[in-house]
C-alpha cells in the first residue's frame, strides 16, 4: 500500500511540475511583462508608462532593463534625479525620448503626464467634491 501511494504522489508532482513549466514558457513568449500600466507618482503625480504599448513599438525587455530602468517597479522613483532635467540629458525615458528615437521629452507633456485627475480615474477614486454653483 505504502509503495503504491508514494507512486501516485510522485506522478502527481511530476504533472504539476510539467504544467508549471509549460505555463512559464508560454508566459515568456506572450505576457511576461506587467499587463497593467506603471503609474509614477514621484516627483509629480502622475505619469503613466504602458509596457504593452512599448512592446508593440518593437521594444523588448533588454531595451530598457536593467538600464536605464531596474526591473523592480518603483526603483527609479527613489532617485533624486528622476526628473525632467535628467530626461533632457538622456537619462531614464530620455534615453529614447530625445526627438529622434521617440518624441522629445520636452514635447507632448500630457501624453505621459496624466495628472492627479488621470491618477484618480485609474484608481477609481473620484475627485474630492467642491462647492458647485
Amino acid at each position, binding site marked *: 500500500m505504502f509503495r503504491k501511494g508514494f507512486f501516485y504522489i510522485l506522478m502527481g508532482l511530476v504533472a504539476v511540475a510539467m504544467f508549471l513549466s509549460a505555463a512559464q514558457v508560454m508566459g515568456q513568449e506572450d505576457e511576461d511583462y506587467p499587463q497593467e500600466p506603471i503609474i509614477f507618482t514621484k516627483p509629480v503625480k502622475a505619469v503613466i508608462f504602458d509596457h504593452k504599448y512599448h512592446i508593440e513599438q518593437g521594444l523588448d525587455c533588454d531595451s530598457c532593463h536593467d538600464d536605464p530602468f531596474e526591473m523592480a517597479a518603483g526603483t527609479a522613483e527613489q532617485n533624486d534625479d528622476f526628473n525632467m532635467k535628467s530626461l533632457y540629458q538622456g537619462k531614464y525615458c530620455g534615453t529614447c525620448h530625445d526627438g529622434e528615437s521617440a518624441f522629445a521629452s520636452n514635447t507632448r507633456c500630457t501624453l505621459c503626464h*496624466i*495628472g492627479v485627475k488621470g491618477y484618480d480615474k485609474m484608481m477609481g477614486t473620484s475627485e474630492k467634491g467642491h462647492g458647485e*454653483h
Partner: protein
Amino acid sequence: MKEQRSTKPDYVTDEERRAFLKLGLKITGVMAGGTVLSLMPLSEQEAGAVLKLEGYENTKYKPHYCMVIRQNDCVDCEKCKEACIKTNHVPEYGFRTTILEKTATDDDGNTFPVFMPVLCNHCLNPPCVRVCPTKATTKDPKTGIVVMHVEKCIGCKTCMAACPYNARYYNEEKKAIDKCNFCWDTRLSKGEKLTACAAACPAHVRVFGDLSDRNSEVWKLIHQPNKAVWVLRPETGAKPCIFYMND
C-alpha cells in the same frame, strides 16, 4: 431689449471684430464652446495695440498684478492647488484655484488631456464688484487685485452668480465669500514676489507679475510676435487679467 447682448456663446461683436481687423489682427479662433477669444498678433506693436485697445495698457494700477498661464506645459500635478490650500486655508469643499480638463486629439489620432488652470481673473471690469450690495468686494485701486472685505460680506452669494469664472465659494467658517486675492494677505504684503501657486509650479506654467512694467516677464510673454494669446469668456466684457498661451 433690442440692445441686449446676445447670449450666444460664440458671440464676438461686429465692433470688436472690426477693431481687430483694423489693427491687422487675425482672429485665430473662437474656441472651447466660444468662450475663448484668441488673437495672433503679427508684431510686438500689434500685441501692444490690442492690449491698449482693450484697456490693459496705462491703467491706474501700479503694480498691475496679472498672471500668464503657459497652458500646454500644465501636467495637472496640482502642486499649485496644494500650495494654495495650505497658504490660504482653503477648505475641502471650496477652491480659490483649480485645474480644468478637456480631451484633445493629435495628428496621429492619439487622445491626450489638456489641463487648464483657472482662478480669479482680477478683471478690469469685475462683475462681482458691480453687483455686491455691501461693497464687500472691491478692486484694489493700487494693485488691481479683486479683494474681499470679509467683515462686510453678508453671504448673499450674488457675486458668485455674477462671476463668469466660477472663482468664488462660500466659506462656512468665515461666514463669507472667499476667493483668490493673489495671496495678498498671506504673501505679497509680506514681501514675497510670487503667489503660492506660481511659486509651487514646477513647470513655470503660472507666470505672475506686473503688467504695467514693460521689463516684466508677463509683459514680454504676451507681446511676442506670432504668438497667440487668449483670455477666457471675453464676451462678458469683464476684461480678465489672466492671459493664456502655449509655450
